[in-house]
């Protein structure tokens, strides 16, 4: 993952995958990195959009 040096918040970019499988794995790495760098409250708020959408 590359960091953008001009970005003060040091954005981390996701490497695109050569195919769907690789792209999904790269997103798993990207998201895990996000989790490590953000509070539990921040990442769980996003994750809950996916989880809550599945149940009544």
């Amino acid at each position, binding site marked *: 993952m590359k960091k953008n040096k001009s970005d003060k918040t040091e954005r981390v970019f996701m490497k695109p995958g050569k195919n769907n499988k690789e792209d999904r794995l790269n997103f798993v790495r990207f*998201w*895990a990195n996000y989790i*490590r760098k953000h*509070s539990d409250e921040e990442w769980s708020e996003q994750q809950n959009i996916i989880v809550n959408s599945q149940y009544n």
Partner: protein
Amino acid sequence: MEYDVVKREMIVNRKLNKLDNFVLDFLKFLKKHVDYVIISGYVSILLGRSRATEDVDVFIEKIPFDVFLKLYEELTKNGFWCLNAEKPEEVFSYLEDGYAVRFSLVNKPIPNFEVKFPKREIDRETFKDFITVILPEGEVKISALERQIAFKRYYLKSDKDIEDALHIEESFKGKIDYEKVNKLKKIIGEIKKNEKK
């Protein structure tokens, strides 16, 4: 997430979702009657993986029918039912025969708890090799991260399972005991060989 490897405790100050609330609600009744350890997909989701699931897998210690009956009665009194059978004797016989039985809220099959007795030694070991996850509104016992990784990578092996394993590895970089993962990999290899026979 703060994971204390020595204390085998993890503090997760996450906002709870509908699945977490379902899990905590079910565990409130389950743990009054029997020891348990949650395994597989929900572990990854609890620890942040960006996916949902229809079921939560849990091992419970082998218990006699009278103890199971008390658990069953408490669950049914509190809005749960079994998807596999109505009579507790029948549900228990499924467990004894090595099947998993599913419990959900009445008339709401998703999500559900998939409850099973441990069959193999490697399954029984999870009761001694677990982590307690401390949430803002409760606690959940999950099997050790190394077990999750080994089972997902070397036993289950689907794309979803490999992604679950990778999520745990990436989220807890530097805190995974790969010597232990490799030992489990060997045991799993033997299990798979025997299953093919």
